[in-house]
């Protein structure tokens, strides 16, 4: 796996992707600066700072960055034919799946997780929000990258399918339907932030801290397993 990881990271880190996703991250930091400098009496800084982490960081920035990089981690090699140079080697498929997810996560952390954490810190409402943002964004990034790696391998136009999944499932169904919330990376990781920050009210359909941490971890394990199976049974062009 140590041989696969740097190749996948380097293939993913194209200038265009880095610039576009870096700009999204910069927005989080700039918004945090605005939150910090506003000083009028009616301004509820803790609430707005929390919403910045929750509504922009975990609901937009992290999933989009994870989608862009993770869907390309195996999707690009599958499309341009270079996957054969990784696939036709005596390497267990789970290692290839894990290396691809890890490569996408490695790039997503500085571009998505870090801006969320820096934004939480800049907004100046306390260390609990910073810790919550770190834990929630890391879990979300890991969960989304694992899921989108498999998506990129299985479908063409993975970006479009990924966006549809984010909008329909994560942002709509999971927020409205209680049972679906337990299968949502978004709701679970937003719950982690809220519970660490002790923010009230909790997100709609929030669950216990244990469940909120467990669900993304299970999603990661399942996604890597499914991606490994796809690599094992699918066809390589």
């Amino acid at each position, binding site marked *: 796996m140590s041989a696969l990881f740097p190749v996948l990271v380097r293939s993913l880190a194209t200038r265009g992707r880095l610039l576009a996703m870096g700009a999204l991250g910069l927005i989080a930091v700039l918004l945090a600066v605005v939150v910090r400098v506003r000083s009028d009496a009616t301004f509820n800084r803790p609430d707005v700072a929390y919403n910045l982490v929750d509504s922009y960081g975990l609901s937009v920035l992290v999933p989009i960055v994870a989608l862009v990089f993770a869907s390309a981690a195996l999707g690009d090699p599958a499309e341009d034919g270079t996957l054969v140079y990784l696939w*036709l*080697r005596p390497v267990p498929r789970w290692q290839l799946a894990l290396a691809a997810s890890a490569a996408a996560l490695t790039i997503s952390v500085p571009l998505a997780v870090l801006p969320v954490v820096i934004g939480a810190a800049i907004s100046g409402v306390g260390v609990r929000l910073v810790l919550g943002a770190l834990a929630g964004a890391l879990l979300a990034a890991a969960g989304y990258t694992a899921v989108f790696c498999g998506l990129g391998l299985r479908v063409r136009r993975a970006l479009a399918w990924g966006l549809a999944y984010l909008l329909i499932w994560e942002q709509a169904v999971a927020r409205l339907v209680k049972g679906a919330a337990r299968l949502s990376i978004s709701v679970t990781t937003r719950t982690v932030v809220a519970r660490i920050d002790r923010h009230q009210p909790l997100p709609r359909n929030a669950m216990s801290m244990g469940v909120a941490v467990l669900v993304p971890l299970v999603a990661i394990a399942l996604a890597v397993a499914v991606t490994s199976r796809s690599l094992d049974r699918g*066809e390589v062009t």
Partner: protein
Amino acid sequence: MSDPMGDPMGDPMGDPMGDPMGDPMGDAPGDRASPASIEVRELGRWFGPVVALSGVSFDLRPGVTALLGPNGAGKSTLFRILCGLANPSQGSVRILGEDPRRNPALTRRIGIAPQQESLFEHQTALEFVTLAARLHRVSDPAAAAAWSLVDGDLDPDDRRPLITYSKGMRQRVKLAQALVHDPDVVVLDEPLEGLDPRQRLRAISRFRDLGERGKTVVVSSHVLDEVEKFGSRILVIAQGRLVAEGDFHAIRDLMDDRPRLLRIRTDRPAPLAAGLLIGGAVQGARVSGTDCVEVETDDAPRFRRAVAGVARDAGARLTEVVALDEDLESVFAYLVRRR
């Protein structure tokens, strides 16, 4: 202008080596004494209504075998199935006695140079081949990669990324990564495309050397004259079917036996056409201009022997004799019809 007295039909007939259109299973290329490295049985593959391969069966043993066929014949699909990259729709493939599908361990014994050009473009040639060596768990992968590159006339110290490489250089890099772990079975999809003549000769010499060392080397090509240099064993695939297999010369003869259309340029087309028809060297002739006659023959060697004498008797001066249907597609179409 071509040599008027030259050989318009290409290579003269060699010694027949049996019926190249015979039972594919009964005339397998390779040394029959050694076990088959590659066994293909009734292989079929289709994509929806499109049949890419149908009823393909053959055994391959150590040595070089050329897989010949026009573009779109199914060569790459066959190669992908041989390497386990794709599933057959029917039939079976055994490589060194094992099913290549879902068998990563077997990949240690297979080397492939795929047809597509994409490589990890940001890497250097040495990094790319070293990656292959590392994934194959070659001891001292960097040294093995450097050796493999040098063997392909490439500089392992070249720091340029692969994106700057020419097509010929990329072909040699692909070959280097396919051979870096010293595989027993080597599958090379159109490996000579983009190589200059000197590099082609070098690559062909390398393939033959691998075959002589007991490796099973399968090389695809759509250029008939190219595969003659690989060795004598050939599989011909067209429209997804194995249409001929066996010795190169036998297949070449078979191709020579098909009806041929030729154009002859001469100062006296009508007397020449009449002479050829009367002598039975051609079955049809058409004067198509003041200096041109087109003839059809189903006995190319006989035509070759007769044309100069007929021209002399008719007082005609030959300035050109060319085959009008020499392209491989027409040859393969003929083989498919015969099959």
